[in-house]
């Protein structure tokens, strides 16, 4: 354990105010894809780090799905050793600049911070982002030590957070790691899903470059299950183990009348057109609905719904509605996203649910037919389940609607790998501890096992799978 350089007595530390994240002003940012949060300065980061009580048994670390040693990295920030702090995080988390931006800290590390009992919790996310950005902006990064080459080949299917985090551990342990991606750019949901204003793509690319520098190989334009089957990855491409980390890519629709109308999108399609294909930039060829001066609605209450509605606002929508069937309290989105959305003028229509889409004679969307909802008894998730208020239908005039109700399991791999078992919802069945599947040498992690979750939970699953693959490969060596 490193020694504390913090000379402020704990009694005084609790009185220090939590630093505010500097933000682009709402009036300006609602027209721009520039990142909303600007990051702490050195002074801000130091002031925030000094608030840490340096608990002997830190709760924050237990609250972190990948178990980052938060106390030690924060102590390094206090000591001014920002690169050391970044290296400390990277031992457990290969994507710190990303998680510092998109993790729901309020329910994880910060939610467990003891300061939060009486005061505001330590800004762990802000500090993580600060050290990762510092490292990137200074063009240097400490690569973790690498074990000697094992001669084992591991394939990772999918380059999203689960695949990337697994690749970082496996390459460090000396394996020859190749990550396959179906799209033309590496990063999965970090590239096609999360918008530029929340996670600049340059940051994702940089984190991938670090992995590349560590020795990870990347191949784009390969659809496993189509271009190569899982069996061929063993027989033709000679991999010793395969990790399936493809995410939950199948968009959910409402299955209500009029969903085929032009102007009705899945969140996946709308965000992919804008983020991956950069349809917001007239220099790029991929088209997207022209939101300028139009009224639009996004259906859903999660982070993806927030991303979609704020994207439409930036594309020039006149009024942007968020239609959600429960109340704001039940919204699964990060608190900060809902706050930012509200500041940007997004209209929240809670306790409202679409029952159909209405079009004109050209097949273009003209309105969403909605019904008012009220909260009933809590359901299995503990959230009070909404019920329709009879006779409360009304039409919300909009020209574009985006459905952001989560995703299901994409059956591409499962359907071409008959001995890979799935559960009744189509997700890959994997042992919760080892993440082994029914097929020898094949592991699965992330949303394709659990259904839609968060970036950090996918990363945690990726690490767990990496550890299990390591054990599998060691056993293989022992027995051969």
């Amino acid at each position: 354990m490193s020694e504390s350089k913090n000379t402020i007595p704990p009694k005084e530390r609790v009185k220090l105010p939590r630093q505010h994240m500097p933000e682009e002003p709402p009036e300006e940012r609602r027209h721009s894809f520039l990142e909303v949060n600007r990051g702490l300065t050195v002074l801000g980061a130091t002031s925030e780090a000094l608030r840490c009580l340096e608990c002997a048994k830190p709760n924050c670390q237990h609250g972190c799905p990948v178990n980052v040693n938060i106390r030690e990295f924060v102590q390094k920030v206090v000591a001014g050793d920002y690169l050391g702090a970044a290296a400390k995080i990277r031992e457990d988390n290969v994507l710190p600049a990303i998680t510092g931006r998109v993790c729901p800290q309020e329910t994880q590390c910060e939610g467990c911070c003891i300061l939060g009992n009486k005061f505001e919790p330590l800004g762990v996310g802000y500090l993580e982002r600060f050290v990762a950005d510092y490292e990137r902006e200074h063009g240097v990064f400490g690569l973790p030590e690498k074990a000697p080459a094992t001669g084992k080949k591991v394939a990772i299917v999918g380059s999203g957070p689960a695949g990337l985090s697994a690749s970082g551990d496996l390459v460090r342990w000396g394996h020859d790691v190749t990550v396959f991606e179906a799209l033309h750019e590496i990063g999965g949901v970090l590239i096609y899903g999360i918008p530029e204003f929340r996670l600049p793509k340059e940051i994702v690319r940089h984190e991938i470059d670090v992995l590349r520098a560590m020795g990870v190989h990347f191949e784009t334009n390969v659809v496993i299950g189509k271009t190569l089957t899982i069996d061929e990855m063993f027989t033709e491409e000679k991999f010793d183990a395969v990790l399936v980390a493809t995410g939950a890519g199948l968009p959910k629709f409402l299955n209500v009348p009029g969903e085929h109308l032009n102007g009705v999108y899945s969140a996946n399609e709308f965000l992919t057109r804008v983020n991956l294909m950069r349809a917001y930039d007239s220099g790029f060829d991929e088209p997207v609905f022209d939101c300028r001066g139009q009224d639009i609605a996004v259906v859903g209450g999660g982070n993806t719904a927030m991303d979609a509605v704020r994207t439409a606002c930036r594309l020039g929508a006149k009024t942007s509605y968020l239609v959600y069937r429960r109340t704001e309290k039940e919204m699964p989105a990060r608190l900060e996203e809902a706050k930012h959305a509200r500041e940007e003028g997004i209209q929240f229509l809670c306790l409202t649910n679409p029952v159909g889409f209405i079009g004109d004679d050209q097949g273009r969307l003209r309105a969403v037919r909605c019904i008012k909802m009220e909260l009933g008894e809590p359901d299995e998730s503990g959230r009070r389940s909404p019920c329709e208020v009879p006779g409360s239908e009304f039409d919300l005039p909009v020209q574009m609607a985006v459905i952001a109700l989560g995703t299901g399991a994409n059956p591409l791999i499962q359907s071409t790998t008959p001995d890979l078992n799935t559960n009744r919802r189509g997700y890959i069945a994997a042992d919760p501890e080892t993440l082994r599947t029914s097929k020898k040498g094949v592991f699965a992690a992330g949303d394709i096992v659990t259904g839609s979750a968060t970036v950090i939970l996918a990363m945690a699953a990726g690490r767990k799978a990496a550890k299990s693959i390591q054990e599998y490969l060691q056993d293989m060596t022992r027995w051969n």
Partner: protein
Amino acid sequence: MFPIVEAGFLAPDIKRFVVEAPRIARKRQAGQFVIVRVHAKGERIPLTIADGDASRGTITLIVQGIGKTTKLMNLLEPGDALLDLVGPLGKPSEIQRFGTTVVIGGGVGAAIAYPTAKALHEAGNHVISILGGRNKDLVILEQEIRAISDEVFITTDDGSSGRKGLVIDPLKEMIAEGRLPDLVLAIGPVRMMQAVAEVTRPHGIHTVVSLNSLMVDGTGMCGGCRIVTHTGAKFACVDGPEFDAHNVDFEILAQRNRMYADREAAELREFRENPDACLKEVRDSCRLEAAHPEVGLRHVGAQGQEQPS
């Protein structure tokens, strides 16, 4: 990067490409497609695989220049490359011994129909092919189709080749004569496929169409290609591209395909004003990719400068 090894026009604006893509060549089956992106700012477009040679590691694509991307692609020559090519996507055609099969290709649809017609022929079916186009120039792959067909009809709108009329005319006559085929495969413009479906529907003839809806990823992720059928919405990219013609709502398909008509027209105008600049974009994209195969176009250092790989 996927090098183009052969390229030549089959008709004005219809070009045949042979592209190096060994993995796709090994796996592709009749009826499947690829998604192509020709330059770093380009859109992703689906193209049906017209043929392939696993031993050479090549696939054949036949492209009709309609919008900016296809017209731009048709400027490419051997020595150029496609920046991104992914596949084979979609379900292969269902090939079995049906008996008598009628394969209808309208315009460039012949290129899409050809591999399936060939597979039907190889499976021992009696293959009757009907090729149609507005005029003689737009009837493509006639020789190739003749080689694998038992009977061939050619129709043109102006009578410049074969008989004057529509592709459905020989089909209607066949049915009137009491020759009911066991399978009809129709590939071409939406309205042509719709017309074929209406001819066969009253006779209950199993009819299959290959649908060209708008796509982004081609793997079932976006749902943009959704087709309305009698059994609910289906994705052309993973549930298709071939569907039972009597089950498809062609009006909605035609409507959805018009979704970006204005933007597409604007891009085409822009392309026509300066095709060389667009071509340069393609060549620059592929050159950069070739110079940094490990890192591609997207490798930018911490300070924003290009870094050596």
